């Protein structure tokens, strides 16, 4: 029948194509989307007050179905559709490119649902670039946030996570002048730091993998606000399990990277010139690290060998002459000694906090599976053993270049 009648066939096809006109189920206009660019998580300060603003949107029953988790305050930066500038624009735009919304909830998703209740468009997390956790929240444990972030398919694993000293809400409200979109500046800052060698690679996916594995603990960048307008990376927040255990100084980030075996150097340090009361600024160009683990009488022991390639960047006074290889040799020996001391100090600091950010445990798991299966097996056990771990540190610092100046 219709095999032989082309016009009938066309009509049938025409009608079959009709339903396709309605389009995709998932189609959504970009203007109808509330794109969340950054999230800041704080502890809700005043309980009573926030219980009111929380609104109980996700509770079936006021008394029985309220989770026991402490309330958190989520500050979200939402891109205003059409106001995110693409490419250079002339003149100062007076309108704000982002909208800042603050909500309270028991969990992230609870807060996000409360946020949805306040925003007309559907929230979209696919462009979420950075999540800032306040120090206090991080110290209470991050596991409660990870569940939602892992489950949600929109979240990118390459988004950044950072810990802040000030309330995270301040970071959301901050308006840096280098970038027109505040949260993008914040995210770029955290991303670029690792490209500059100022921080080891750090993104949320990496944080999760490290948190899951049994022989190491995660670390995150620790941010502070300077002069109310600029953000500074002022250390590394180290965790014990999912709880933040402490923070280091910025220079110690460099030492951490040295032990972790991250080749790209970026930090400089003042080294005292032997025999004089003057200093030179020595910059680490690259490092090579060898971590060897072994069992000494059944007790774990680590040997760390770091080789630095450095360069003298600056001297503090005219009285120092850097003009023969002898003095450079002396400086490099002094540097080796000082760095070794600092490395040991850093390890001792993390041991006290039971936080193996260097991943020594992973080495033991990989190389001594029998020992691991018999004595360790869980993350908690490893953290306990890590506390009494013995270690040797050898640093070999080499200075090959002194820049363009001969003296």
């Amino acid at each position: 029948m219709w095999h032989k009648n082309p016009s009938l066939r066309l009509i049938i096809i025409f009608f079959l194509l009709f339903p396709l006109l309605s389009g995709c189920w998932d189609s959504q206009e970009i203007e109808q989307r509330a794109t969340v660019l950054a999230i800041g998580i704080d502890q809700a300060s005043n309980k009573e007050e926030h219980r009111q603003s929380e609104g109980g949107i996700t509770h079936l029953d006021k008394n029985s179905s309220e989770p026991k988790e402490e309330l958190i305050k989520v500050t979200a930066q939402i891109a205003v559709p059409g106001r995110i500038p693409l490419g250079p624009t002339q003149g100062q735009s007076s309108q704000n490119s982002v909208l800042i919304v603050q909500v309270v909830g028991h969990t992230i998703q609870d807060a996000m649902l409360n946020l949805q209740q306040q925003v007309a468009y559907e929230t979209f997390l696919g462009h979420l670039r950075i999540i800032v956790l306040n120090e206090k929240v991080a110290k209470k444990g991050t596991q409660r946030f990870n569940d939602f972030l892992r489950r949600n398919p929109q979240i990118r694993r390459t988004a950044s996570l950072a810990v802040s000293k000030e309330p995270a809400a301040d970071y959301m409200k901050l308006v840096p002048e280098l970038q027109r979109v505040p949260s993008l500046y914040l995210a770029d800052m955290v991303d670029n730091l690792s490209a500059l060698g100022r921080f080891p690679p750090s993104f949320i996916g990496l944080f999760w993998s490290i948190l899951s594995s049994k022989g190491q603990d995660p670390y995150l960048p620790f941010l502070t606000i300077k002069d109310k307008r600029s953000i500074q990376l002022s250390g590394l927040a180290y965790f014990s399990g999912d709880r933040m255990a402490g923070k280091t100084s910025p220079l110690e980030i460099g030492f951490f990277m040295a032990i972790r075996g991250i080749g790209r150097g970026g930090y400089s340090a003042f080294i005292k010139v032997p025999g004089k009361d003057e200093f030179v600024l020595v910059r680490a160009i690259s490092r090579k690290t060898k971590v060897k683990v072994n069992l000494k009488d059944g007790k774990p022991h680590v040997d760390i060998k770091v080789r630095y390639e450095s360069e003298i960047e600056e001297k503090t006074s005219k009285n120092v002459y850097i003009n023969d290889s002898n003095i450079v040799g002396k400086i490099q020996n002094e540097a080796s000694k000082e760095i070794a001391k600092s490395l040991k100090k850093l390890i001792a600091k993390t041991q006290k906090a039971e936080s193996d950010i260097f991943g020594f445990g992973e080495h033991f798991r990989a190389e001594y599976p029998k020992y691991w299966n018999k004595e360790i097996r869980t993350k908690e056990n490893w953290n306990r053993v890590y506390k009494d771990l013995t270690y040797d540190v050898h640093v070999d610092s080499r200075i090959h270049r002194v820049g363009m100046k001969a003296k």
Partner: protein
Amino acid sequence: MEHPREITTVQASMILISTIIGVGVLPLPLFAVQGGGTGAPLVTFAGIILAAIGLFILTALGIRHPKKTIITYGEDIVGKWIGKMCSMIVIFFFVILSALAAREFGEVVVSAVLRETPLEVTVIVMLLIACLSVRYNINTFAYIHNFYVPAILGPVLIIVAFSLKNANPIYLRPLIEKDFISMVKGMLTISGLFQGSFIVTMVIPFMKNPKKAKKASFWGIFITGGVYLLIVIATIAVFGTEEIKQIFWPTLELARTTALPGNILQRLDVIFLAVWVTAVFTTLFSSYYFTIYSIKQMAKLKDHRMISFFILPFVFFLAMLPQNILQLYDVIQIAGRVGLLITILYPAMLLAIDLFRSRRRREKSVAQES
């Protein structure tokens, strides 16, 4: 046979490659890690070897009966009625396999990409495409597979290569972590992912030179095995075994974590999903084709087109049976392992009987001559 023998050796191995690489790529590292912990690459390798053995048994059978498929020579070897019964089990198994592949596809699409689209729609669209493509003859079948293989292999290799930037080789050690039994279980599950290779029995009768089927099988399993092993190694090196246990589809997650250098693409899951949809289609296409063709041969029908639509509602119904995604994966793992009885043990039995018989026949003819 009514069709000319036109499939070349290269085409045959292409068919194998695109058939084997399917939905299973996504949960593959999870299955491997559940079985072997950090020994997952080893488990995967063992699974590949087992699958290769099964494939070579089938190929050997095919070469011994270059004009027939497992449905027809099965009847010759074990007798008409037992053969028919076994064929029915095989066909039913492939109906289930098609259904599970379609459902798993739908499940991934609904939970990762198109969250508003009803599951039924994604499943039925995929089945309909397979159902329509099945209506053509085996040469078209070969061309379609041939066409898609580069599009499937290329991006997967690119993703694996770029993901190694974040790799940490320490996650891959020690080589053996778990006990023997769980490793064997993992091996069987992995082997189950290679069940698409059964299609080789359908292809051999149409090959230009059936003798070369062994070569085609070798390359087919070598390339897919290599790709699977690479995926397992890359995902473990990037995530570590403990993290993989927390993710349903580690391969998808790998694509999501990987960025092309220079911020050309910040996440590769878009490319990966596009590739994966074609991979699922080719797999479904093959298992559906096998089902339809086998029914045709068993019932000695002239044309297979009508059955194609007739089977569709059954496949769809089966696909909708699992209650939720967790149950679905239980069923998939069990079906994979039990299926090995059908896809490896049954052909092995056939080959043994066949060899035994032909030897007796030869002895007999030698005795008659003397």
